[in-house]
């Protein structure tokens, strides 16, 4: 399991970084999305993998960490998911505005001369 998830994280991150370094704004936005999946899964992995562990407490009792999934990375990721949506939205609009103003979708607002 671990090796597969690690591989998945690696490929997501690698594809994300590759796209991040591309010259077209759309590539960058897709790259950021992929990178955020990788990072979210990485944060989850920091709490170790648990399959089939309850995420909800048995009613009326305080929980023992050994019996439950780690809530801490989950809370962090929940925030990260929403914020990455906000980042994507802002970036998309900036991208569109820049495209409208400069006439190009190159990340620098101008095509490279060479």
């Amino acid at each position, binding site marked *: 399991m*671990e*090796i597969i*998830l*690690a*591989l998945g*994280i*690696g*490929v*997501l*991150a*690698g*594809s994300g*970084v*590759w*796209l991040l*370094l*591309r010259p*077209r704004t*759309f590539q960058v936005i*897709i790259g950021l*999305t*992929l990178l955020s*999946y990788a990072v979210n899964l990485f944060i989850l*992995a920091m*709490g*170790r*993998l*648990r*399959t089939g*562990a309850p995420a*909800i*407490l*048995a*009613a009326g009792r*305080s*929980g023992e*960490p050994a019996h*439950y999934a*780690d*809530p801490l990375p*989950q*809370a962090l*990721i929940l925030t990260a*998911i*929403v*914020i990455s*949506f*906000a980042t994507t*939205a*802002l970036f*998309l*609009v*900036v991208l*569109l*505005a820049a*495209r*409208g103003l400069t006439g190009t*979708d190159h990340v*620098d607002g101008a095509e490279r001369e*060479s």
Partner: protein
Amino acid sequence: MSNATLLIGLTALPFAGSLVAAFLPANARNIEAWLAGAVALAGLIITATCYSSVTAGGIVRYEAQWLPTLGLNFILRMDGFAWLFSVLVTGIGFLVVLYARYYMSPEDPVPRFFSFLLAFMGAMLGIVLSGNLIQLVFFWELTSLFSFLLIGYWHHNAAARDGARMALTITAAGGLCLFAGVLVLGYIVGSYDLDAVLASGDLIRSHSLYLPALILILLGALTKSAQFPFHFWLPQAMVAPTPVSAYLHSATLVKAGVFLLARLWPALAGTDAWLWIVGMSGLVTFVLGAYLAIFQQDLKGLLAYSTISHLGLITLLLGLDTPLATLAGIFHIINHATFKASLFMAAGIIDHETGTRDIRRLSGLYRFMPITATLAMVAAAAMAGVPLLNGFLSKEMFFAETIQIHGGSIMDDMLPYIATLATMFSVVYSLRFIHGAFFGPPAVDLPRVPHEPPHWMRFPVEFLVLACLVVGIIPGLTVGPALETAAYAVLSPALPQYNLAVWHGFTWPLLMSVIALVGGALLYRLLQRYLLSGVEGAPLLRHLKSQRIFDRVLVTISWRWAGSLKNLLGTRRLQVQLRLLVGTTLIAALWPLYGHWLAVDHAASLALDPAFALLWTVGITCAVGAAYLAKYHRLAALILVGGAGLVTSITFVWLSAPDLALTQLLVEIVTTMLILLGLRWLPKRIEAIDSGPHAKARTRRLGDLTLALLAGSGLAVLAYAVMTRPAPQSISRFFLERAYTEGGGTNVVNVILVDFRGFDTLGEITVLGIVALAVYALLRRFRPAPDSIDIPEQQRLQNARDAAAHPLRSTGATVTDYLAIPALIMQAIYPFIGLLAVFLLIRGHDLPGGGFVAGITMTVALLLLYMAGGIRWVEARLRVRPVRWIAMGLLLAAGTGVGAWLFCYPFLTSYAAHAELPVIGRAPLASALLFDLGVFVLVVGAMALILLALAHQSIRSHRAPSTKAALASVTTEEK
């Protein structure tokens, strides 16, 4: 009321007054003046009440905890010296307010003036009363800021802006040095408490860091007090309204520097470094200022240089490093404040009544304004050190000190001569001020016909001149006790023997005074022809313009050097920046591995599930496919990213994180919609047309690929290494144990978000709201590129088909027909999705769900409605006000937090209970639910605002300048 409480009032009152003054109507000159005057007077009365507590070394102290972990307390502390300054600040402040009431013209926006003036007064009182050095620096910088605003009050005037900026640059830079110096001082002493610092003078002086601390602190004090070589900002600040000059340059701003020198005298003085730096700076300023003052053509310019010179004198006295000289310095602080304030006011009256301050144009004003002239003469005589006036007394003490000191160096022997010479200069410029303005033939062609000012405008001058006289004649009875109180606070326990008498018999100092007075008069006679020739600037130093040097230095540092540094190290190209960023991150992450190897422990692995492997085969294919296709096949890449997101979401379910899976899934939907809406505005990019990559581009790609592979494999190895080792003890236990018992919810993740870390969530939704507003604002001015303005190709084809198929078929019918059944279903399920959102919201505390998920669900419902009916159809039937929802959500969430205050709990403390509700059954009823409701409303508002603003672009008619041309070219292409 205790004296300590009075101190809080004294400091807070001006700031409160400033706030009130700012909101009064623009023409309320009288109310403003009454308000400001009342504040200053109240301050003066409070100060007066405290007098009995500060005599003979008494200290009034108020202390409140500020940052106890850092040993920092907010301390207000009034001793005799602070008391004296407090009297000057409030007393002269009151007179200045009265004067300003008549000086400011009805056209000036007075609320700004009085508001800044009061705030400045508060900041000055803050410096004076600070019992903590950090706090002192804070108020110090506040005075720099407010003096900047006051000097630049007439900001339509370029000179005012320049002068204000220069004053701010110099004094605030000095303030930063002071801050650094204070930190060093605090490090030496181990406390920032002023009492502790003053008590450890020996420790400070013997410490190895003494010299850096001293130099840094002196940089602060000397810049503020306009001492050589930082004196040049003060004359430039004369563009301020005259009441400001009268206040800032007599009793307050520039005195803050010498205040600090005297304040820290017990802690820092007594070394050669102090003697040389402070003494020399003071001496040079004293002489140079007096010399330059003689040749000024502007009345206020003359006073400005004389202020510099007198501050130099005070600095010199403090630098001489004997108790008696320090006492003389304190005495001169009082005297200078009184006569200089009155002279500035007199100069202002002349300017106000004649319309000019140029000595070359002024003449013979005595005839028109005899009372003002007489008052100015007395004040100028005090400045020149004429007997029976206060300036004479402190100058005598200074002369006596110059003779007393005999260290054996040439400087000590020269000092009496230099002192006499500089005093001679001060006699010359005093004479020039009086003679130039008030005597001689009556002035011709003045902008206005001069006359006496209104009585209350002259009153402050009268009062101050009377003070000069009374102090000059009977010093022991008037200023004596106050001076003793102030000096005792600085010099205790050993107050030197001194005698505040007018007549000491025939002594050396008296002879020096006589020489200075007679010599000055003769010198003025000799210089008169030269002065009348009307040349700007002083002989010998005419070409040395400090302002120009300052400007040049500033341009060199902040423009040329900064520019070349930017060119050398910076780039505007994003790709280069990102490459650097990724590369640096990679190196930083690999650094700890240097010399070790990452140990991988296989013990704690889970059994491999083939289904999971299959899932990730899909996920990996999606990610690689998206990376490959993103350039030429955007839609395909977007779908593949959606696939990768889905795999991530399923992984969350697999790994016991249902909340995440739910949120990821919904956000995935919304993100896809968002990018779909954006795709329409991007340029076409067709693979066949693009020429193949250049050799250079190929190398770049190879480099990027290597970087991407390294980053990906690095993260994979790291993740694997972490996952396979046992988990350390984390704070998760805390949350798991208390989620139900203290947070009242069984969904631990949700309880963390809305309760334990509610403040973070509040910050997060605020960010979301801000982003939504930013998106909205950006799109309001959105101009698409010319080639995207026309309706998209697909739509054109559809329209053409609609037109060709049947004469009765309307345009757009294809789309309507195509979506007819789904649209019906979408409209029908809208309320049910809404219900689902409410369900998710309510159960969120105990089961997977919560405000975020519910909010996104609701947004999806709304979007379905839009997709089914179109924008116009929906907005004709539904009031969609996302901006209001954002505001309501934020208010609700923050309001829930504030609500805790009502029950005397800290911000965002939540209350939890369960209630039996009819129909629904047992439901959690925590106040956190209310908070979550706020999150819900805000998320709906923010997401809807972002998506709808983008969607609206499609039905907006865009009028770019080149629209027509673009349209024309498109039509010709079609043909």
